[in-house]
């Protein structure tokens, strides 16, 4: 009875929040597709462009080229060297942000309506005519190298690197897109030009726009900005073979608190059981105080400040990951508690009450994500890259609510694999040693 009451309330609250996000599909005269949320209440627009492939498109032996190329986009374009470029951007009171990840390179722009044309001219030059001046290349290369040296002494980065290498081997997912000190040191200007042409092409482009712009204006803007991009870029890499052998891997590092990453095979975003897995993860370790891991590891035992688990469905592999950190003399107990919880859920599943709570939380929190134009633009692009329908936002909570207890417990038994759960522990853990299962 109580559960039903809750569900009714949430439907009421979810619907009006959604109403604010009306997505239109826009196709420019030149054939570029975009999703748009028009909102003329503030005179600016957030534009998000994403190019699929990301740093996984690095050519063989050129690891780090796409990351370095992305870092150089704001270091001069067309007639403007790095300093002139930044001054021009500042004079327009706009901001551009460029980022590269394992699955995409993103371009996030924010600009006022009053000088939109000039800002787009500058962004056009940025994307089509980056300079890659020698001094800029060296400057940004030094930043990348400095970051790599820091990562080599950061327990979180050490854990990430060890976990990636064990899980994905030689696949691009097996190494950081930032490259190695050696590969970054050897990159040439030609490598950067090749990286640029690998990434920026229309066959991998996704666009989201939110704010003070009409569909007509957006269409014209996109043709001007992106119409002359090449039709295609580098071929997409194949899927990764994922290996999880279970057990513990200790990476010795002198620091007071051990950092652990853990993981096992995951679930694809388009798997029919994805929502069941998503709800299950919310119960197991989905980042709230009420998750089983948070309750057992933090609330009951005080073993950590935070413990989380998350499904990570990516373009080329899907894994199920988690993270935790405990003092060196307590991490052993933490690892054991997490293992026990993993097994308990695999064997006994979840209760109806836990399922209801998780659904209530997930459905209720969903509208809170649509928070600001830039955030919404990013969500619009993410939905398109995940190949979700344009009405997904209005149906998403129904999909969460459709997960039954039987679904959840069947998927718990199938998905959770305690014998394949691998921990990588960086620190000086007491009572933990590298094992295999």
């Amino acid at each position, binding site marked *: 009875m*109580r559960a039903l009451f*809750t569900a009714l309330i949430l439907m009421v*609250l979810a619907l*009006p929040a959604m109403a*604010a996000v009306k997505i239109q599909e826009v196709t420019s005269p030149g054939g570029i597709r975009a999703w748009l949320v028009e*909102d003329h*209440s*503030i*005179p600016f627009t957030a534009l998000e462009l994403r190019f699929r492939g990301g740093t996984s498109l690095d050519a063989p032996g050129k690891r780090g080229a796409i*990351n370095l190329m*992305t*870092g150089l986009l*704001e270091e001069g374009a067309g007639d403007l060297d*790095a*300093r002139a470029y930044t*001054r021009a951007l*500042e*004079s327009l*009171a706009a901001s551009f942000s460029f*980022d590269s990840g394992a699955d995409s390179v993103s371009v996030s722009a924010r600009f006022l309506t009053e000088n939109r044309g000039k800002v787009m001219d500058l962004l056009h030059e940025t994307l089509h005519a980056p300079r890659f001046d020698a001094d800029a290349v*060296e*400057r940004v290369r*030094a*930043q*990348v190298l*400095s*970051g790599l*040296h*820091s*990562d*080599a*002494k*950061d327990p979180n980065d050490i854990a990430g690197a060890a976990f990636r290498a064990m899980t994905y081997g030689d696949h691009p997912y097996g190494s950081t897109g930032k490259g190695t000190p050696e590969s970054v040191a050897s990159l040439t200007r030609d490598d950067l030009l090749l990286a640029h042409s690998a990434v920026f092409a229309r066959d991998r482009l996704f666009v989201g726009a939110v704010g003070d712009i009409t569909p007509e204006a957006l269409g014209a803007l996109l043709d001007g900005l992106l119409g002359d991009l090449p039709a295609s870029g580098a071929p997409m890499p194949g899927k990764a073979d994922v290996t999880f052998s279970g057990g513990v891997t200790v990476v010795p590092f*002198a*620091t*007071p*608190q051990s950092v652990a990453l853990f993981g096992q095979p995951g679930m694809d975003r388009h798997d029919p059981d994805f929502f069941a897995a998503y709800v299950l993860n919310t119960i197991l370790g989905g*980042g*709230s*105080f*009420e*998750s089983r891991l948070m309750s057992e590891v933090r*609330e009951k*035992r*005080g073993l*950590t*400040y935070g413990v989380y688990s998350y499904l990570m469905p990516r373009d080329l592999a899907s894994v199920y990951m988690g993270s935790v*950190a405990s*003092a060196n003399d307590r991490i052993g107990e933490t690892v054991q508690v997490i293992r026990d919880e993993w097994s308990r859920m695999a064997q006994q599943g979840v209760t109806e009450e836990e399922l*209801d*709570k998780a659904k*209530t*939380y997930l459905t*209720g*929190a*969903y509208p*809170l994500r*649509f*928070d600001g*134009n830039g955030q919404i633009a990013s969500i619009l692009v993410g939905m398109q890259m995940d190949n979700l329908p344009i009405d997904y936002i209005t149906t998403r909570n129904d999909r969460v609510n459709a997960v039954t207890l039987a679904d959840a417990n069947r998927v718990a038994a199938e998905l959770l694999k305690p014998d394949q759960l691998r921990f990588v522990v960086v620190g000086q853990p007491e009572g933990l040693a590298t094992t295999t299962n």
Partner: protein
Amino acid sequence: MLKTFAATAAMLGALSGAAAASQAVGATSDAPKAAPETAAPETAADSATDPVIASSTEGVSSFTLANGMQVVVVEDHRAPVLQHMVWYRAGSADEPIGSSGVAHFLEHLLFKGTDTMAPGELSATVAANGGRDNAFTSYDYTAYFQRVAADRLGLMMKMEADRMTHLRLSEDDIATERDVILEERNMRTENNPGALFSEQMNAVQYLNHRYGVPVIGWKHEMETLDLQDALSFYHRYYAPNDAILVVSGDVTPQEVLALAQEHYGKIPANPDLPPRIRSQEPPQLAERRLQYRDARVAQPYVSRSYLAPERDPGAQEQAAALYLLSDILGGGQTSYLADKLQFDSNIAVYTGVFYNGVSLDDTTFDLVVVPTEGVSLEAAEAALDDALRAFLREGVDPEHLARIKLQLRAAQIYERDDVADIANRYGKALATGLTVEDVQRWPDLLQAVTEGDILDAARSVLRREGSVTGWLMRDEEVTQ
């Protein structure tokens, strides 16, 4: 500049001001204990005692309840959600000697039970209503907030008002949660040589003021915090006359007023609330230096801090000049230090300048130089000082200043997209002694700053004898 590098660099430079520690929450659910209340305002009861709502053009209103609780409302009706925050004018700098970390510890303990709510029930109820909650602590304040659907404001206030006065803690809560905050310190500080260095810098900068003690606490004192420490801090400071309510989002001031009177208005003021008097810094007469070595340091850097005035009520002009000075010297690619140390010469991979004027007492003006491979810390520091001298000689590039002012004007348009950020700004300001009017005057004060103001501010603050210089270094002996 690489985005990821900029983020890392900003973190290692984040010495200034609010090293906030937070509780890291989220929350799942539990069917709501009490039926969610509607936001239907009770018609204002007695007009004679009704606070006057002062409104401004940017959708910000404010008033004060009869018990002294200040209220700020920031309206944004684009989506039916809101953020409810309560700020207490009590932070780590208000802690008794020997109990460092108790303000933050208490923040964690406020998620335990009250006389009528079980431990964890508040977060669970927020979650069951589709919301998210969290809290944070800094030197001058502790704040609690929830983000929820707009029609749940009454329920949020009911629970927040409950834990303002009816906290119930057990010895078990204390022991377990103390372990949690120690692990939090491990994560934020002990595992991070940059954070340990920054802690040492602060300790050296503040000889006599509590800003020299870390917000999260010194480890040896955290280990001794007990129930009595937490409760005595709670009873001393948690009261409506020491609190600020800030509600932002899809709500009207009238609705907030009615609900605030219903839930907070009935809590009596604490007549024994102590005045906020802290031991102040003496004038700094001698330059101070330190070197911190750690085997985990990959990238050494130089950090420099100067004691600097903060924004004071009705007197923010010098702080406005310092704010612009920090932007001109170290606000990104076109800043003066980047120009001299990253472009004209290849001394640094990163430079940054930070000034946080929102502080109850004297704050700091901080500079960071991360040298290029092969450049010594000594050379980097010398280059920094050369650049500062050259800046004072050359003065401000008027075009640069004009660009910064233009961006500040544009920021007032962009910020309307993020009312939670506006709400934060008001909360922080009011908790550190500023008024609503001070916050609203700030943009105009920034626009009015002249080149002369900036140079005067620079000359008065960037004094060698008023500085602390630190070197974060690799410990070569321990490195294998």
